[in-house]
């Protein structure tokens, strides 16, 4: 039932939107309303997982949800709901025509479906298929408005994304090869639990090779350097609601895939190997993102690079033992909430100023004071200031690093974080203050659209000041899974 609600409602919404032609506003409202179903299912699922259950469904345990899946399901359904409520198609005037609205409704729901499938699929092959499908569905949405830039971004995205994900499939095939050769042929061979179960007997060199391919592949989707290149383009050129989904949860889903594989490989060859690779890629992402942020001129790209930075951090966290995995997962949740809010707010700014250049949007505090306030709060959050959740998770992450005896690594990380911080705050101030260009109207419009942003800020502050017990229990479950 949970899985039906979770997976079928987005499909239903997509089907409705596809069948009703031309687009009608009620479809948008219906989709928005339906977006609560997966969210509710996710909450229900999490509650049951917290009670110690592992939910499965379908022939051969086709779907399976443990603590890790539950967390991701929550994140995905939350951001999907956010995007459903704030995406094109609800407001009377949002700059999109009927065809574009329809295609948004169809593909955003499909996108949500594929992500939900990716994090609940039991079979790592199916997980791969779902992640590959996210590329296809999201690529359709990037050029919602066809411009040279959006076509360029989408081509780069789909090509890099497809090639990357194909490499992840190589990794999957190699692992299967290993399994078949050492544990015998089974129908359930690619099921994650059977992989994990027989990991100790698997051949470690082959598994290492497999992990390299998997890491490169899913790392491409996660935006890890040096495969991150599609990310700033795609995030800056797509509609803000899609950017929110991509930056908020698509990266998280890819991290999820990497973590799943890391658990298997660790069980076979010990964590030292995967940790080394993750640290290398994480640090590289962090460094490239931090330094690129310095000279950034476009605020959506700035947010995109900040996503790369945070993916890098999460990746580093995964390599820092149980404490690090806890911190990384907390970070992932915080980043999901923050970044999806930030892209939605950036969309508002873009709609008002008709520009994504930082230099062309000064004076936000005067033209849109409430948006500016939320935007500033979000920027402080992604820069890692209290009282927001990212501060606590970065803090926990650095602590895990020191506890793991990687003091020098954490020193470098701290320096890079400071660089990113300075860059972000400087850019923020250029946007917030100064004189707005003359023709820009002053005053907030559609204040209701900011309510979700307010909700996000509240969540962030709550996560920054306390760690609610369900969250910490869920995270501890993940740590149990990931670092037994």
């Amino acid at each position, binding site marked *: 039932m949970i899985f039906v609600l979770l997976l079928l409602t987005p499909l239903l919404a997509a089907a409705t939107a596809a069948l009703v032609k031309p687009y009608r506003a009620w479809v948008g409202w219906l989709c928005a309303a339906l977006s609560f179903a997966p969210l509710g299912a996710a909450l229900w699922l999490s509650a049951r997982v917290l009670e110690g259950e592992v939910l499965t469904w379908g022939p051969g345990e086709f779907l399976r949800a443990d603590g890790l899946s539950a967390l991701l399901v929550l994140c995905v359904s939350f951001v999907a709901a956010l995007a459903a409520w704030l995406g094109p198609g609800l407001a009377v005037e949002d700059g999109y025509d009927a065809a574009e609205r329809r295609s948004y409704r169809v593909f955003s729901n499909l996108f949500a479906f594929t992500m939900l499938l990716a994090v609940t699929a039991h079979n790592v092959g199916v997980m791969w298929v779902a992640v590959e499908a996210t590329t296809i569905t999201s690529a359709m949405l990037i050029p919602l408005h066809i411009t040279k830039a959006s076509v360029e971004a989408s081509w780069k995205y789909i090509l*890099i994304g497809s090639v990357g994900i194909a490499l992840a499939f190589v990794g999957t095939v190699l692992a299967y090869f290993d399994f078949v050769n050492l544990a015998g042929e089974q129908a359930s061979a690619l099921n994650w639990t059977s992989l994990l179960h027989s990991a100790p007997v698997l051949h470690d060199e082959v598994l290492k090779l497999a992990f390299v391919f998997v890491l490169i592949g899913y790392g*491409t989707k996660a935006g890890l350097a040096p495969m991150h290149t599609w990310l700033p383009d795609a995030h800056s050129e797509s509609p803000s609601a899609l950017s929110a989904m991509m930056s908020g949860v698509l990266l998280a889903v890819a991290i999820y895939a990497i973590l799943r594989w890391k658990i298997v490989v660790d069980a076979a060859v010990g964590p030292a190997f995967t940790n080394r690779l993750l640290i290398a890629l994480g640090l590289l992402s962090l460094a490239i993102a931090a330094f*690129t942020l310095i000279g950034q001129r476009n605020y959506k790209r700035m947010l995109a690079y900040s996503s790369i930075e945070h993916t890098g951090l999460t990746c580093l966290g995964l390599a820092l033992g149980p404490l690090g995995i806890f911190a990384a997962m907390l970070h992932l949740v915080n980043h999901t909430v923050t970044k999806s809010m930030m892209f939605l707010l950036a969309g508002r700014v873009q709609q008002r100023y008709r520009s994504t250049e930082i230099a062309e949007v000064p004076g936000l505090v005067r033209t849109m004071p409430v948006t500016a306030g939320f935007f500033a709060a979000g920027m402080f959050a992604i820069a890692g200031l209290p009282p927001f959740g990212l501060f606590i998770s970065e803090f926990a992450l650095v602590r895990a690093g020191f506890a793991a005896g990687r003091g020098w690594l954490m020193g470098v990380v701290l320096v890079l974080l400071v660089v990113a911080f300075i860059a972000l705050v400087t850019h923020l101030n250029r946007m917030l203050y100064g004189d707005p260009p003359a023709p820009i109207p002053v005053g907030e419009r559609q204040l209701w659209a900011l309510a979700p942003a307010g909700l996000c800020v509240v969540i962030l502050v709550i996560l920054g000041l306390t760690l609610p017990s369900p969250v910490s229990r869920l995270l501890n479950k993940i740590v149990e899974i990931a670092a037994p």
Partner: protein
Amino acid sequence: MGTLVTGAIVCYLAGALAALLGNDRWGRILGAWGAASGAAISLALGMVALASGSVFSAVFDFPSLTGFALRIDGLSAPFLILTGLVGAASAVYGAGYSAAYTGVYSLRKLGALFNLLLLTLTLQVMADNALTFLLLWEAMSLVAYLLVLTEHREPATIRAANWYIAITHVGFAALLAMFFLLSAGDLSAAFDTLRANAPVLTQRNAIFILALLGFSAKAGLIPLHVWLPMAHPVAPSHVSALLSGVVIKMGVYGFCRIVLDLMGGGSAWWGGLTLALGVASALFGVLYALMEHDLKRLLAYHSVENIGIIFIGIGAGLMFQSYGLMSLAALGFVAALYHTINHACFKGLLFLGAGSVLHATGTRNMEEMGGLIKRMPRTALMFLIGAASISALPPLNGFASEWLIFQTLLGGSHIPEPAVALMIPIAVALLALTGGLAMACFVKAFGITFLAIPRSHAAEQAHESPFSMQAGMGILGLACIGLGLTPFFVVPVLGRALAGLDRLAWETTVFSLTLPLNTPATFGSMSSPLLAAGLLILLGLIPLALWVIGANRRTRVGDTWGCGRIAQTPRMQYTATAFAEPLRRVFAELYRPTKDLSIDFHPESKYFVQSIEYQSEIHPWFEKLLYQPLIGIFHRIADRVRWIQAGWLGLYLTYMLVGLIALLVLAWWTP
């Protein structure tokens, strides 16, 4: 004590709430009341802690990672006192001062943040574990940052805020690393545990360096001082008072807490480095202050100077401690703490005074002031008291603490290594030079601002500030005098505050009305109350004597003598630039002023000059030699890194191929 702590928190929060919810007038006034009463409670808290010697301790069940622990001990108390004193004064002052922002900037934000800043400051000195400390530290920085941004329509404000938050964040990162090393990863361990474990830590030197970096960024020690002269002038003046008086003192507090208390001191070079940085800050601070014509920037540079003096005391104390000269060490720390409180009072007072001048004239440029003593006599008197205090003139408070620092340094002869000991007289000489230059600077600041003829229309139209502002200044003025007259009381009390640091053997001496110091090194005595009384008696006796000898008592008012010219205009007066010119020449090697001279000749003959334009500027060379190259390096790296994203799909795919191959090779090599 718990009640008082709760009371202070409630007052601040209520003040913040009132400021947020109230209208422009009532929000402003109620917010100020909240802040003032909260600050008064903080002051009381500090005094109670010092008087009773009792220790307050509370651990709140804070569901984030771990507990939130507060504790008040001897070392917190002086800082609570100065927070309370300056906080209350600036709150009262701010009630009147911020009225000028009505309708221009958000008063709600200002009032609420002001309360929050005081709240974080009050709690900061109570933090009893690393987590609490760091959270409050970052909260304090953030609130202060937002306060600096109050006048956000000025581009200079944004620049200042950027610098401030950047440097403060560098400091925070250093502190974070420092605490992780100190606590071996367990940030929720109480400071007591850290204190017990500190002696056996292996990375003590790294911890010290990180602490110095982190806390000097907050305190504004050279070379991390650059944000100070930018951020303090652009903040509203009562906030500047708080920034300069209290916020930067948190750097001093943190340094004392970590290095003295938790680490219990260390090698001699710790003290030597601290001392050297202190001397450099003191000297460069005052030198740049001399060249400044922006009244508030001048004061901000003086904060650099005084922080330097405080760190001289701490550094000397650390050095003595490393050689086992415990009573000298204690003297140094007491002197530093004393100067910390004193500086809070007189710098707060001066910023409030400068705020009144700004309020009255609308400019911070001294060259456009003059003659204000007649238009705003009370402000002038208060500023004069502050100026005399900061110039260390007897019998005010600046003198008392500088005298103690000199006495501490004289003990340097007891350091067994001559090479190290020779540092001390150099420090003495440079400290004395600093004192002299500070006096010169405040003659300039007071003389050009308040004396002679107004140099601009705005200065002519100046008016005395409202009562609340005068009251705010009055509180601090009285504190300056009071602290100056009672060193015989303050020093033993501070000594008791330090007695809590159990590794310091503080020899209690008998203190009477005078302050004779009987350390193994030197013997010196000073009694500022007697000195003050003597000066007052003499001031009374002189007119009496004149009357006795029958001197002519008639006074005629005339023109200023002008070598025969008829009218005297403001342009004929000495300017601030001219006043500082001799010192600029003397220290030209350090200032390295740029000169730009252009002469326009008459087209017909080059013997007739039509106009001469002379420009000379001083660029602090820290910015040129340290920050610009550093920023340059980062920008160069950033430029290179930017080209990774060259926009070229083939390249991107090549990255993937290369990344794949590299990781495969890496996997090969990994055992």
